């Protein structure tokens, strides 16, 4: 899997993402936001951070950048796209994934661990997890409150496009486990072809014992094993 990591002004998680991909054996390169040639890449990762200072809305400015036009074309050709945190916000702003990330219901920036349940095992992203597996992931965001209208939420659930849900360590999707207030505890979603994935938490920050655990590593092992 040849991966590219998009770097916008204000992005700050790109090196964490590169480390995670490298540990699992994927070969990442950085893509500056003015680049438009993504040829030779299987996966485009849009990492976390605060692109363009979160001006207007989180991800709104990055969604209009030249590189994202190329990312949209990459996805239309069936390419893989992973958006984490700000990357998820950018993908929803572009309409590549449905819904939107609102301000956390508590209005507080949340920087803590959460637990995610794997809602669907997919070849590209979660093949190294068991269906229903629960894993710990750090999160750090002010706007992670997933929202979509009921028809969209019903469609996501009906078509099995919910990737991860916020749960307790025992795997229960309770209100208390859903710290940012996301609709139906949704932490991550897939596109219809299961090749575009967006999620708010940061599995890339738990891929080495030195980081405090390797809970997120199966995600990157899955990516490295795909394609």
């Amino acid at each position, binding site marked *: 899997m040849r991966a590219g990591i998009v770097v916008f002004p204000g992005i700050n998680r790109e090196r964490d993402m590169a480390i995670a991909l490298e540990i699992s054996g994927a070969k990442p390169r950085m893509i500056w936001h003015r680049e438009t040639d993504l040829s030779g890449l299987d996966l485009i990762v849009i990492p976390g951070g605060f692109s363009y200072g979160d001006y*207007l*809305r989180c991800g*709104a400015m990055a969604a*209009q950048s030249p590189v994202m036009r190329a990312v949209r074309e990459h996805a239309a050709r069936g390419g893989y796209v992973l958006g984490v945190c700000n990357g998820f916000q950018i993908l*929803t*702003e572009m309409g590549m994934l*449905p*819904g*939107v990330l*609102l*301000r*956390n*219901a*508590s*209005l507080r920036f949340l920087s803590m661990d959460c637990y995610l349940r794997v809602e669907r095992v997919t070849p590209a992203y979660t093949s190294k997890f068991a269906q229903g597996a629960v894993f710990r992931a750090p999160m750090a965001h002010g706007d992670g*409150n997933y*929202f*979509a*209208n009921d028809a969209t939420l019903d469609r996501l659930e009906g078509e099995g496009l919910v990737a991860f849900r916020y749960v307790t360590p025992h795997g229960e999707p309770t209100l208390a486990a859903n710290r940012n*207030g996301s609709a139906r505890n949704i932490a991550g979603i897939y596109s219809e072809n299961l090749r575009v994935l967006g999620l708010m938490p940061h599995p890339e920050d738990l891929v080495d014992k030195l980081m405090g655990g390797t809970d997120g590593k199966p995600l990157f092992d899955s990516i490295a094993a795909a394609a």
Partner: protein
Amino acid sequence: MKATVTVMLKPGVLDPQGKAIGQALHGLGFAGVGEVRAGKIIELELTESDPAAARAQAEDMARKLLANMVIESFRVEVA
């Protein structure tokens, strides 16, 4: 022309910011405050001199960038 675009969350979309402002106002003793909604105002200087054309431009900008139509609505005033 000058166009003023007001962007507000659609009714039914939770507005925690508005809620927090409301609670703070209650804390200050403004007991008569009901629901509070917070939005943003964007002022645009446009070279266009025809009001109808300026409005159409501002509406196009609002749909494409200034508002996220999933959760927000907007209104445009030109002067």
